[in-house]
């Protein structure tokens, strides 16, 4: 029996085990939405903006490891998800985005709500396809899910013209697929893995440097095993947080621009670097010519283009991180694996790292007048007993969260790393909460980022999702203000947000509980109250607009040359500029 393209779409999604689709309807996808509302297996989460849908699908995918699914209309529907696609492409998030397209006979005619969806998305998707014949639809959907979730994951866009969704064809869902030009390497070269294991046994000052690839590959157990049997300290990139417990004695936390002093010093002095699913991003390396100058480099990555892209690798291993580490751990155990001996030989290095850690730990000074953002994150970390799923936005609050919320499990840290998308956090938290309605999901955000997708408050309320929004409200684009203070002589060009909405009233308008903390003593009661509440909560926490995030490697600086505190000559906002700062009572901006 022949069924319509829209029915083939739904049936294919069901075969892929899709439970949730994030989207928003429009003219050319009405047939698909019409079929969706007549079935029960797949739930549609109606967002208020397509960008929200894309980030929700990302949050869903990051938290579950399954592909997030987006369904939007042509033209503006598609262009509104471009940021989400670019974000997912940078951070290797498995996403399948279905976009409507005008009928095939109208394509190219500048029809109403027409956009070149495959053309626009080509540079920000792993793969994309325009479906020209309904008979190809099932095959294309199968391939889309396979490509999105295998190898180095990423977003795939499937563009479905209106007449393809209404045309009929026999439904045959392919059992398996083989793509002539796409076969990710999994195993890794045995010879190189052995070489790497030998280097590890010889190294005096080794470091394990873990990126987001370890999370996608579910390699947390293997990393822990590797670290423990070899007693090698582990540092994580922003994307890799959670792949190794932040509370583990061998964890050195995050490295890079705002990484720990001890972490970056350890990297700088390391004689062996074991890079695991990481890509030597500029925010990690700082000045490349002075990055890890003494280290031999073992680089394990499923994406060959990540290897030797920016930094050399002495032993490149192309393969799935989990599969490679499993083999490596077996080899290491069979080598001269006397645990006591390894422990003893590693002791001087670990002692050195601890000395760096004690010399310059993370620090801030909390007085009784003004709330420090770090204090809020530390309290949150304690109150949630280290167990929450945390979604963040982008900026200072993100870095503070990365430093102080020492997550212990993979897939509990959802953040926009590569693209640095403000507005990512809140929808991502909604997506994660949709996947896990009974887990604690926090959205750590700031007034700047939150206002970029706050329309999804209503989606959150409507879906009865108990996201806890912790809004660190300092009335400024904090990271921009920090850079202006440090590098632009304190001229605050467009970083002061001036008039701020009343976030508690805003929450109320959407039927969401709103709480406010103005002074340090409010923090704990507000957090406790908010976390206890059964529904969604917005906690508006007014923090110090002048707190800076340290340590900091200035852009282009060398990794061991960190700023650890405000320089004495720092002259905040004193050197003119035309922007006047508005200080209104209760609007979130505290007087200087």
């Amino acid at each position, binding site marked *: 029996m022949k069924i319509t393209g829209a029915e083939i779409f739904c049936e294919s999604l069901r075969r892929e085990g899709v439970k949730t689709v994030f989207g928003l309807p429009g003219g050319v996808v009405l047939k698909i939405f019409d079929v969706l509302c007549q079935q029960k297996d797949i739930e549609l989460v109606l967002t208020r903006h397509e960008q929200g849908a894309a980030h929700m699908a990302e949050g869903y995918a990051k938290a579950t490891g399954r592909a997030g699914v987006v369904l939007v209309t042509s033209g503006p529907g598609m262009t509104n998800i471009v940021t989400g696609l670019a974000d997912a492409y940078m951070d290797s998030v498995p996403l399948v985005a279905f976009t409507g397209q005008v009928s095939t006979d109208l394509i190219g005619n500048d029809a109403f709500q027409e956009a070149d969806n*495959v*053309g626009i998305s080509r540079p920000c998707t792993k793969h994309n396809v325009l479906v020209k014949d309904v008979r190809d639809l099932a095959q294309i959907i199968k391939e889309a899910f396979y490509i999105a979730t295998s190898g180095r994951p990423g977003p795939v866009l499937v563009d479905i013209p209106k007449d393809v969704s209404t045309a009929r064809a026999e439904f045959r869902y392919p059992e398996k697929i083989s793509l*002539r030009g796409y076969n990710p390497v999994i195993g890794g070269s045995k010879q190189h893995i052995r070489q790497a294991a030998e280097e590890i046994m010889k190294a005096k000052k080794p470091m394990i440097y873990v990126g987001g690839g370890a999370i996608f590959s579910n390699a947390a157990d293997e990393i822990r095993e590797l670290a423990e049997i070899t007693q090698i300290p582990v540092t994580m990139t922003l994307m890799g947080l959670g792949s190794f417990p932040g509370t583990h004695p061998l964890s050195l936390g995050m490295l890079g621009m705002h990484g720990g002093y001890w972490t970056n010093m350890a990297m700088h002095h390391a004689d062996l670097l074991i890079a695991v699913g990481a890509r030597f991003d500029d925010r990690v390396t700082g000045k490349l010519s002075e990055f890890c100058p003494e280290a031999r480099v073992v680089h394990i990555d499923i*994406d060959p*283009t990540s290897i*030797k892209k920016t930094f050399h690798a002495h032993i490149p291993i192309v393969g799935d991180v989990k599969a490679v580490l499993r083999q490596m751990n077996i080899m290491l155990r069979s080598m001269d694996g006397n645990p006591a001996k390894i422990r003893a030989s590693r002791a001087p290095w670990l002692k050195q790292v601890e000395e760096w850690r004690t010399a310059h730990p993370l620090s801030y000074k909390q007085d009784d007048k003004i709330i420090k953002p770090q204090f809020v994150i530390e309290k949150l970390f304690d109150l949630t007993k280290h167990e929450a799923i945390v979604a963040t936005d982008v900026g200072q609050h993100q870095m503070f969260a990365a430093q102080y919320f020492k997550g212990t499990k993979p897939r509990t840290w959802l953040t926009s790393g590569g693209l640095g998308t403000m507005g990512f956090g809140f929808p991502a938290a909604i997506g994660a909460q949709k996947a896990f309605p009974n887990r604690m999901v926090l959205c750590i955000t700031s007034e700047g980022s939150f206002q970029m997708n706050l329309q999804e408050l209503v989606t959150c309320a409507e879906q009865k999702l108990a996201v806890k929004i912790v809004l660190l409200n300092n009335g400024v684009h904090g990271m921009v203000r920090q850079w202006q203070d440090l590098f632009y002589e304190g001229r605050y060009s467009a970083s002061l947000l001036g008039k701020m909405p009343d976030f508690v009233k805003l929450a109320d308008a959407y039927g969401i509980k709103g709480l406010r903390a103005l002074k340090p003593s409010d923090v704990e009661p507000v957090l406790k109250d908010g976390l206890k509440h059964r529904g969604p909560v917005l906690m508006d926490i007014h923090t110090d607009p002048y707190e800076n995030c340290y340590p900091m490697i200035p852009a282009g600086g060398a990794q061991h040359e960190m700023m650890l505190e405000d320089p004495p000559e720092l002259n905040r906002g004193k050197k003119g500029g035309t922007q006047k700062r508005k200080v209104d009572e209760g609007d979130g901006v505290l007087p200087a």
Partner: protein
Amino acid sequence: MEHIISVLVENKFGVLARVAGLFSARGYNIESLSVAATLDPTTSRITIVTIGDDRIIEQIMKQLNKVVEVLEVVDLTETDFLDRETALIKVHTKPEHREEAVRIADIFRAKIVDSSLTTYTIEITGDVDKVEALINMLKPLGIKELIRTGRIGIARETTRTASPRREPALLKS
């Protein structure tokens, strides 16, 4: 250094855009590009001449391999290969230059494929040095228009019996 990269791709909508877009997005050069179907109508061959140091060429090869519709990537420059280019050159021919133009074409075994009272159009096929040499020879006559196909390349068979260009060496080996 210059490299000739031969890319076998699926003959599908948008593949050329993806390959070309990869070069522009990552700031790689394309010196010349030529595309056509192969013996198998489901695949096409893209020949790209590009310039870059070893690190860039390695990235280009890897990035091309990553494209889902790309089936095979070969850096011909790493192998023993042949490359050819065709050019059509329309030269001005004043009456006193018509003989000279024919002579030059003959030297290069080029063909005059079109003529008018004031121009000849000369077709030349050869490696890049030969094409450029002819162009230089014709320049003093005045070139009205010049069209080049871009280079295509093919690896030499390792089991070949003889090749006119390298005969002496081959007979020895």
